């Protein structure tokens, strides 16, 4: 993890050396590059052996909602493409201001013209006996997270580990939440009487404590740690009142303090932090400092938001258009999923302050807004934090709210004209300085300007200004801004999945994988579904997306399937069902025909019809009779034809070289092989295949989702055809020389469609949307990619080729078929 410094002697630019490869150091560099990309030659020193990542997203990593890769802000390409030399894993240990050099632990000496100190802060370790025992860690960097994950794993192996988190502030509670989700029994020790007392008042702190205890954590307030006990490693924590709490892991999260040792040793002015002026310049004009390590105007900050302001001021100052930093007002959100807590400003109260409070005990909502001289000075929200941004904006702008006072507590929608006011109006009313994305410090003005510069989709906004690119909780705000800025244009963007969500199909699929979601309720919770359990549009879609993402692991939700897929037959207008057994490649036999004829007679099926897909459809079967019908068909060797499913339907064939005088290849044989490979797979929509033995194309392969036309020299592969409402002929994907290749390409194509098309999107509109070139690039031009797709399809198939009819015929899920009771008015209940 070391990018050697570029000691280019020919490079005569000023050399900017940055100590600290964290959020502040890299953000400052980003701000400088945005103003003048070529002004400085830049070298960054980082203590951790990693690229720049988003430290505040460590909590979701610990909780299993994100992976390290998801929280990288700038990857190795960023350093390379901006010619930044990164020395990672070799911390700077000394600064020589006279010689203008820094020295690293390994002895590397680098000269600077300007030095930027962004060393952040150090976790505060309370000086109790046992604090140095193995198993006592802080919660500051990725190594700490890895240590916690290892402890949780070790705990699991012995049937449950125990962790003690010392500190019930933001960081401690996020650590406790993550460890608890990872299966550890967690006790939180907090010295003060209420949790998060710096951000929450007593009432909200109490609500929070109740909620965490309901999730199985033990919260001890007023708990004063006496010592950490253990022989070779930590074994428990002893409190001053004598209580002993066993623990395999102790996380110290009592606070942080500015990391100032380097600066102090170098003789810079240091108070609580490294003292800087409004342009982030220290007592030495060649040395700047930014982030949590600094003290500005007597203030030090331990939150992320001030950092963005500081970095802007620093960059403005360095490129000679000084603006000056004026301090920050901060707000806090707790990143514990399902618990919404927000606080901002000063809520300690006082004689000149007035409180407006709203409580809704049954919903667990508590809101408190603190006013002074008709201006908002603080806000605490618990349970419903939707108006947090609005109160924070009022607080920062110091707007006179006397006109709103009576309705202020009911939130912005109400204040701007009625409880059901247009939510867009609320976002439109935010000032340009209002923060939209707390994770990446992006204001409304910046989002709007990104959109104006051409970022016309959520993804484009995410990649241009990073708003909504981290935890995603501001996605709705960003989408509203897109709608407000682009007006009708935005409607041409991806549609939302349904009215229950503001996310589109692609967003949902991506987040399911990115966050490792495993169930429909989890998706609805994490993606802020607007309805309690979805609707008949989104539930089948989510069920499919999870099934596709987690083959073999996901437990199919039958109640989220359309009736046909739940009953494995096609519902007809009179409430009876039709049954289509599979006929491989359209080939049948006397035994199969006899069995079908017997079923038709035995169950009085009023009609049997030859389908367009070369098989027989038995009509008029009652729901109760389905298992018996299937048992009879199974006995003759037939399985479900999936004529009812968003699944592989038929593989239609013509007779090919075996019989036909024009046939060039064994089209029936290939069709059977392909059907054996692909039957049973669930898809975004129905999927039809055909194999024609010559270009006369008797199997109509060029209106199928995947069609093969055999020619003398091989096999033409066609994709994206449809014979439905809008007839669409296939596009030629490519030509291959062997049956095996034809099958491999088919499997890869199916998997690409399965993974990337939206639910209920046939291949034809999908290909028109993504373009044939894209499909060719993935299937034809990328050999390794094609092979990986094929392999994923086969893995998925290994779980999906059980005949659902056989399972039902054996009595599985009988409740789908039998009535719960029978009632004969003259007699009694049967």
């Amino acid at each position, binding site marked *: 993890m070391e990018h050697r410094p570029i000691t280019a002697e020919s490079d005569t630019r000023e050399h900017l050396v940055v100590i600290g490869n964290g959020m502040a150091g890299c953000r400052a560099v980003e701000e400088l590059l945005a103003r003048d990309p070529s002004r400085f030659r830049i070298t960054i020193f980082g203590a951790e052996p990693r690229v720049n990542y988003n430290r505040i997203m460590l909590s979701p990593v610990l909780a299993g909602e994100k992976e390290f890769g998801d929280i990288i802000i700038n990857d190795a390409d960023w350093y390379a493409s901006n010619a930044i030399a990164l020395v990672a894993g070799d911390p700077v240990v000394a600064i020589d201001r006279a010689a203008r050099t820094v020295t690293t632990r390994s002895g590397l000496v680098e000269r600077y013209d300007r030095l930027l100190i962004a060393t952040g802060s150090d976790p505060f370790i309370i000086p109790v006996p046992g604090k140095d025992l193995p198993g006592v860690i802080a919660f500051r960097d990725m190594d700490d997270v890895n240590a916690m994950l290892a402890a949780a794993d070790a705990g699991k192996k012995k049937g449950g580990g125990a962790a003690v988190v010392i500190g019930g502030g933001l960081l401690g509670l996020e650590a406790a939440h993550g460890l608890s989700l990872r299966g550890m029994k967690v006790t939180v020790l907090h010295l003060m009487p209420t949790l998060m007392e710096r951000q929450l008042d007593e009432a909200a702190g109490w609500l929070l404590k109740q909620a965490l205890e309901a999730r199985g954590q033990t919260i001890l307030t007023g708990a004063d740690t006496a010592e950490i006990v253990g022989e070779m490693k930590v074994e428990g924590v002893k409190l001053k009142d004598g209580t002993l709490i066993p623990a395999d892991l102790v996380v110290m999260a009592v606070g942080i303090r500015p990391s100032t040792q380097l600066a102090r040793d170098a003789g810079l002015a240091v108070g609580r932090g490294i003292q800087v002026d409004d342009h982030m310049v220290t007592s030495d004009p060649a040395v700047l400092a930014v982030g949590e390590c600094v003290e500005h105007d007597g203030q030090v900050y331990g939150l992320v938001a001030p950092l963005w302001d500081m970095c802007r001021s620093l960059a403005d100052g360095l490129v000679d258009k000084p603006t000056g930093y004026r301090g920050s007002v901060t707000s806090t959100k707790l990143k514990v999923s399902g618990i919404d807590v927000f606080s901002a400003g000063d809520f300690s109260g006082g004689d000149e302050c007035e409180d407006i409070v709203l409580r809704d005990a049954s919903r667990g909502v508590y809101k408190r807004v603190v006013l002074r001289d008709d201006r908002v000075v603080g806000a605490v929200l618990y349970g419903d934090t939707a108006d947090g941004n609005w109160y924070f904006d009022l607080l920062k702008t110091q707007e006179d709210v006397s006109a709103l006072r009576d309705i202020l507590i009911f939130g912005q929608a109400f204040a701007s004209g009625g409880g059901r006011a247009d939510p867009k109006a609320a976002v439109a009313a935010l000032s340009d300085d209002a923060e939209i994305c707390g994770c990446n410090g992006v204001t409304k003005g910046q989002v709007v300007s990104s959109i104006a510069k051409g970022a016309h989709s959520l993804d484009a906004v995410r990649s241009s200004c990073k708003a909504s690119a981290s935890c995603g909780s501001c996605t709705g705000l960003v989408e509203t801004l897109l709608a407000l800025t682009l007006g009708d244009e935005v409607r041409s963007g991806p549609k939302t999945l349904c009215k229950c969500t503001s996310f589109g199909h692609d967003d949902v699929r991506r987040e399911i994988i990115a966050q490792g979601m495993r169930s429909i309720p989890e998706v609805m919770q994490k993606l802020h579904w607007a309805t309690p359990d979805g609707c*008949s549009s989104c539930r089948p879609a989510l069920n499919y997306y999870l099934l596709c993402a987690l083959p073999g692991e996901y437990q199919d939700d*039958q109640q989220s399937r359309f009736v046909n897929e739940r009953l494995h037959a096609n519902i007809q207008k009179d*409430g009876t069902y039709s049954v289509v057994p599979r006929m491989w490649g359209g080939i049948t036999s006397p035994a199969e025909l006899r069995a079908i004829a017997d079923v038709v007679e035995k169950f009085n099926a009023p009609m049997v019809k030859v389908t367009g897909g070369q098989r027989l459809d038995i009509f008029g079967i009652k729901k109760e009779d389905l298992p018996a019908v299937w048992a009879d068909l199974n006995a003759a060797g037939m399985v479900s034809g999936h004529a009812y499913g968003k699944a592989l339907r038929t593989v239609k064939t013509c007779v090919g070289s075996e019989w036909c005088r024009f046939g060039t290849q064994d089209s029936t044989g290939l069709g059977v092989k392909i059907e054996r490979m692909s039957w049973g797979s669930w898809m975004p929509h129905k999927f039809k295949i055909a194999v024609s033995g010559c270009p006369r194309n008797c199997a109509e392969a060029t209106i199928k989702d995947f069609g093969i036309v055999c020619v003398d020299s091989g096999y033409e592969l066609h994709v994206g055809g449809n014979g439905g409402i809008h007839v669409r002929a296939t596009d030629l994907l490519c030509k291959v020389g062997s049956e095996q290749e034809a099958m491999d390409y088919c499997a890869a194509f199916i998997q690409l469609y399965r993974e990337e098309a939206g639910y209920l999107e046939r291949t034809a509109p999908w290909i028109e949307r993504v373009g044939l070139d894209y499909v060719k690039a993935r299937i034809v031009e990328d050999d390794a990619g094609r092979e990986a797709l094929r392999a994923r399809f086969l893995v998925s198939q290994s779980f999906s080729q059980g005949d659902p009819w056989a399972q039902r015929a054996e009595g599985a899920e009988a409740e789908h078929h039998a009535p719960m009771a029978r009632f004969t008015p003259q007699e009694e209940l049967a």
Partner: protein
Amino acid sequence: MSTAEWLDIGWVDQIPVRGSRTVQVEGGDDIALFRTAEGKIFALRDRCPHKHGRLSQGIVHGGAVACPLHNWRISLATGEALGDDRGCTPTVPVKIDGGRVLLCRASTLMAAA
């Protein structure tokens, strides 16, 4: 136990959550029993007011069921079609007693008729 007023149909747990079961009534339409995600039980004639689709085969979401034939949404509490569609299917009073589902006998006969 059934009484003159109430028919004992079975255990609540026999109805899948967000699912449905039916009661066959001789000489009439089935009655569909629904169990919502919140655990509430409702009973309706198993017949959509639109084209007579079997509501018991639909997807249950919130307090409604989507008819399997044409996706009309029917309120489980009132039997009324929701949204822009107009129509109503009869409801049957249900009560739960000791985990047993009881259907109002008179309403069952009327709804099924």
